[in-house]
């Protein structure tokens, strides 16, 4: 279904422009990091790509897909867990994605094992810690074997240990050849996980570059200011 092609994509609420004429092609392979300060429109851009929001103008096209949404999944900054066990949360997603009854539980147990939640698969999801819930959210998305996985600031509310867990899961998902598209405002994380950077500011795509080049020498004044402003 990749590449994802955005053409002059705009989104406005009550006349206020949030995403301003973004055109870009996101291809399979490299981990794409959408970077930018708070309020740049990163999350909104991701929701537009995932189909949770309708663009005000412009278009989003998945090439090679059969018109539907294809296999894509998203993990949110705050994981939303259903009032049932961790296992049942993963199974719920698999059921909606059309996996057969017998396959669901096997798959769900497997993926929970991989993210390190195998021992607590039968615990109610909502009483797990924040880090465990986010790992569960990753498992629920990964179980669907998506072609593209959108991650919206997946570690913003977590302590350093939990951040490491999530980043290692992201690496594994990437290695299983799922395309990773992730927003962050954390430069360190963008350096660790990014192959290419889309730098957003005030709803506009300011710069697109391979990660190493971007961090060595950003072209735009906005990106340079953003990196200078970072605290040690």
């Amino acid at each position, binding site marked *: 279904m990749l590449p994802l092609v955005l053409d002059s994509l705009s989104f406005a609420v009550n006349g206020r422009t949030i995403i301003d004429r973004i055109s870009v092609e996101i291809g399979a392979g490299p981990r794409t990091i959408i970077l930018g300060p708070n309020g740049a429109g990163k999350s909104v851009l991701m929701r537009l790509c995932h189909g949770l929001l309708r663009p005000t103008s412009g278009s989003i096209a998945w090439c090679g897909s059969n018109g539907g949404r294809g296999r894509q999944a998203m993990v*949110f900054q705050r*994981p*939303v867990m259903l*009032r049932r066990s961790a296992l049942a949360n993963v199974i719920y997603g698999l059921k*909606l994605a059309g996996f057969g009854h017998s396959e669901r539980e096997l798959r769900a147990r497997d993926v929970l094992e991989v993210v390190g939640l195998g021992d607590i698969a039968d615990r109610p999801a909502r009483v797990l810690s924040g880090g465990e819930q986010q790992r569960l959210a990753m498992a629920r998305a990964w179980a669907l074997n998506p072609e593209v996985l959108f991650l919206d600031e997946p570690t913003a509310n977590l302590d350093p240990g939990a951040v490491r867990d999530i980043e290692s899961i992201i690496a594994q998902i990437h290695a299983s050849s799922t395309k990773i598209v992730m927003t962050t405002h954390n430069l360190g994380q963008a350096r660790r996980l990014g192959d290419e950077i889309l730098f957003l500011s005030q709803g506009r795509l300011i710069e697109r570059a391979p990660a190493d080049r971007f961090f060595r020498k950003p072209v735009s004044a906005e990106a340079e200011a953003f990196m200078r402003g970072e605290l040690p």
Partner: protein
Amino acid sequence: MNEIGLAAAEAGRLIAGLDAKLTEIVLLSLRVSLTAVIFASVLGLPLGAAIAVGRFPGRRALIVLLNALMGLPPVVVGLVVYLLLSRAGPLGRFGILFTPAAMVVAQTILILPIVAALSRQVIEDTWQEYQEQLRSLGAGPITSALTLLWDTRYSLVTIVLAGFGRAAAEVGAVIIVGGNIDGVTRVMTTAIALETSKGDLPLALGLGIILLSLILALNAAAYWVKEAAQRRYG
């Protein structure tokens, strides 16, 4: 004062001795109000979920209307159901006026808006939290509504019990459509009204005590269930 004391003592004796007449009245009350609350829940919970999740013209007006209908005066419901069910009325051929069935109909109408409006509120609050996640996983409106009904189940129990409390405690509707016929349609509230006016205070007081304890016990149970569930499932 002395009269109240005597009445209370006599009421205690009636309750302790499981007085036949008193038992019959209590059982009929339970039967009518429980049946009404089942009908109101079967209709009202899906209705609440549908309004919470759905987006359709007139939605806001419907919400305002349902909220307003929570305050329906029982006597007005009684009157309307009476007109519908009376011999000359549109539903007169069923011949259920002055039967427990008529009382069930009236109480169902009375508490349906309570169940629907309160469940709509609870489910919509949860929908705010779940919406993006469920849509991301590909849930359509019907799947979403069913998921929300299940995930709010402990709050919905409280709502259903509020509906039951309202049904069991009201007198205006059942006295009009039931007629308070001894042994046929006499329930706790209509009996209390009658016995009080006749001066048989012990029976009235005994029924009052049972009615209060019943509603207290139910709500304690509901509270306990919700608490336990909250601790267990978060």
